[in-house]
């Protein structure tokens, strides 16, 4: 354990609220006064911080978690398949998970977490959306619905409902953040949800007078922009007291210099700074592999390598804080079982999810395997959904995030937890 880590540990919430200056590591020198002055909760009592990573474009669950013992998998994907660890031919192969499923070799960064029991895999999971449209499927998931329908309610996101239901006096302005330019639908309508493109660049230009003009201009009205403006000013005040530019990840964590790597590094920073972060939402696009998706190398492999290495760096960086952190990786749908003429895969149905964290009952693949037999496929040849994605999210919120009524976030769900979390 590095020295820096120990001192994060010793920072109790009460000490920070008292404004006790602990000194030590340079980057956090400004934190205590920030929290003392602003007077918001530094840590949600007894709850985890939830980090959601959304893979946009429909990640190919069958190659991310290949069912290497299912002969149909190899038959329907002659060029794209990942080799079984039992094959004698040379070459890169699937990392074995449980003797039936494997992990794409480009996710090697996450393999130790799985082996240590801190990462669970759910296979054949998804929504009830049948349109196979990115936008419908994403909208349904981000709103926490089984599916959208014509004229279906386009209300707020599932994380927004969670935030609104659990909101309290004195919540942090950084209670929920999306690292990116745009507010994702999952957080849409959530109290104090902010989209932050880059913590290091989150600085207001101009002098004090300009700042005061903004405070005045955004002070009164209640439309969406005025409210967002006030939130932005509060976040500016908080971040101005921190020094993200000087932040160094705890060795040996090494983030890839990718958008996802940078985003997770910022989440780690906010976690350690104890600014009351409860929900972080990140996304990574590019999963719509219709053409030349590759196998152990190529397009999909490159995306997975980034996901694996970024999350591995994040878990290493936050160290013991992983015990109070849950990470969920999800995507809007999986892809067609058989490969197409462009050596890619078209939109399908079920995909996979990952849940990681200190309280995850990991080292196991959850979910019923519907098999890839012709008569078990859905529609034109898609893996059937056997686990409702809301059962996974619902378990996270109720077991780790202090949600008492699951109905407030997932209306109408007959919740069947998988037992993923301790």
């Amino acid at each position, binding site marked *: 354990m590095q020295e820096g880590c120990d001192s994060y540990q010793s920072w109790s919430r009460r000490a920070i609220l008292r404004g006790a200056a602990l000194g030590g590591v340079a980057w956090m020198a400004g934190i205590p006064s920030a929290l003392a002055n602003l007077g918001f909760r530094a840590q949600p009592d007894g709850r985890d911080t939830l980090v959601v990573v959304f893979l946009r474009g429909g990640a190919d669950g069958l190659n991310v978690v290949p069912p290497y013992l299912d002969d149909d998998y190899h038959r329907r994907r002659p060029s794209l398949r990942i080799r079984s660890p039992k094959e004698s031919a040379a070459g890169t192969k699937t990392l074995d998970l449980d003797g039936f499923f494997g992990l794409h070799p480009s996710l090697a960064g996450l393999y130790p977490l799985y082996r240590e029991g801190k990462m669970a895999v759910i296979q054949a999971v998804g929504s009830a959306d049948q349109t196979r449209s990115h*936008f419908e499927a994403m909208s349904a998931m981000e709103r926490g619905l089984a599916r959208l329908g014509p004229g279906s309610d386009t209300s707020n996101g599932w994380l927004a409902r969670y935030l609104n239901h659990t909101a309290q006096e004195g919540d942090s302005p950084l209670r929920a953040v999306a690292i990116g330019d745009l*507010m994702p639908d999952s957080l*849409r309508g959530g109290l104090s949800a902010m989209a932050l493109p880059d913590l290091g660049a989150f600085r207001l230009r101009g002098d004090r007078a300009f700042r005061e003009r903004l405070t005045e201009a955004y002070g009164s009205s209640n439309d969406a922009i005025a409210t967002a403006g006030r939130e932005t000013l509060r976040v500016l005040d908080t971040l101005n007291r921190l020094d993200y530019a000087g932040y160094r990840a705890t060795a040996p964590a090494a983030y890839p210099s990718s958008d996802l790597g940078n985003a997770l590094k910022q989440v780690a920073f906010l976690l350690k700074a104890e600014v009351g972060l409860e929900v972080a939402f990140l996304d990574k696009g590019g999963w719509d592999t219709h*053409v030349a998706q590759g196998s152990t190398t190529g397009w999909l492999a490159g995306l997975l390598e980034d996901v694996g290495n970024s999350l591995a760096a994040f878990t290493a960086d936050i160290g013991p804080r992983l015990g109070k952190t849950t990470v969920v990786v999800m995507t809007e749908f999986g892809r067609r079982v058989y490969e197409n003429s462009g050596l890619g895969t078209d939109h399908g149905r079920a995909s996979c999810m990952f849940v990681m964290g200190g309280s995850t009952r990991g080292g196991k693949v959850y979910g019923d395997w519907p098999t890839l037999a012709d008569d078990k496929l859905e529609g034109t040849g898609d893996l059937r959904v056997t686990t409702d994605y809301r059962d996974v999210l619902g378990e996270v919120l109720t077991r780790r995030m202090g949600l008492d009524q699951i109905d407030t976030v997932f209306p109408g769900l007959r919740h069947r937890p998988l037992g993923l979390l301790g």
Partner: protein
Amino acid sequence: MKRDSGIDRRQFLLGAAAVSTLAVGCAPLTQRVAGRRRAEDISMPKRGGSEAHRFLHRAAFGPIPGEPRRFAEMGRDAYLKSQLHPTDDDDPAMKFLLSRLDVMRMGSAELRDLPEGHVMRQLRQAAILRAVYSQWQVRERVIDFWTNHFNIFAHKGDGAYRKNIDDLMVVRQHALGKFPDMVRASAQSSAMLGYLDNQVNRKGVANENYARELLELHTLGVYGGYTQKDVSEVARCFTGWTIENRFMRPRDRFRFDPNTHDDGEKLVLGQRIPAKGGIEDGNRVIDIVTRHPSCAKFISTKLTRFFLGEAGEAIQPRVEQVYLDTGGDIVAMLMPILTSDAMLDGPPVLKRPYDYLVSSLRALDAQTDGGEPIQAHLDAMGQPLYGWPMPDGYPDRTTAWTGTLLARWNFAHQLVNNEIGGTSINPDGLAPYGPLVLGEGADGASLGDAAALLASPDFQWR
């Protein structure tokens, strides 16, 4: 310097800002324009300003100084008549500005010798220049709509080298024409064929990417009445629609390859497409979907919402009927929207970053080259042009953009203080802002007033 050569007085009045950039570095002309400013000339946001201000913020990219007065004198109908029937691809001043850009002069083969980043910058530069300075403002607004409707992510594959042709031959060519013609052009655009993978759609196991988005995003809408089976059948119809890549042939053009076309019979939305149709299969599909009632509903809804936001619901059925009556005539569809009362009294619509940036530049009568420094601001606000990876185009809902206010504030500050390379304003021309920002009777206006105006909540709406 011969500033006004070849540009008549009317052009000067309508495109004063464009002309002023012709005289890059020539302060006198800018001052001439600025010197005539009156307080009511200054561009104000919808809720505070006159009817002319509101109209020009919604139908166009916001007024330049003096424009609301000219609009009021001219009248809305005459304004729309001239705006919706442009007499050329670009006005003369614009042609001059654009002539310096490689992407406007070169074919895609030549263009490929240039770095992708250079080509992207110039594509964006052209869009910004046109939006800020074109005298045909309404057309540029409509082009922004279609650019997002037929979104191309230029960073995918060779997209950057193909987007300029797509912009010209699909979007600009048909923006005020007939919708089915635009779909036809888009289906054969090398940028679209590459972006949505139809270039590798071959018989056997067809690639559904283009087929699905043609139905879902380009024509019928996701609840337009098609099934997964229809998507597969449409994909079969478009097998063999690819990009020319044979040895010694001009590249980046559409090619129909009969050898990879699936020539069997198909059934699309209940209509039989007989075997051996060849390239006609795809054309039949476009006819079927663009004549479909769902297409009229989907396109009219989206176009109305673009201009009017939620207030568009009342007018949408009329626009839908116009689509059906005219076979998708875009100008005819725009008329009921642009002449509706909701243009003046409807609830405000949030400006996307591109709208915001362009309307700010116009409000301050800024000179800009549209180059990298100003593009970086658009980036920071979350809307780098041609940079939206998914085929649905940049979002139009307010909540998508509420996280980017800081970038807008910083832009306002830097613009007013002349801190953006390649872009400048005349600080001596800001006097008329005083009464508008500080109230009647206030003398002059500081730079801070102008920055506060552009950064204000009101100016974020149109």
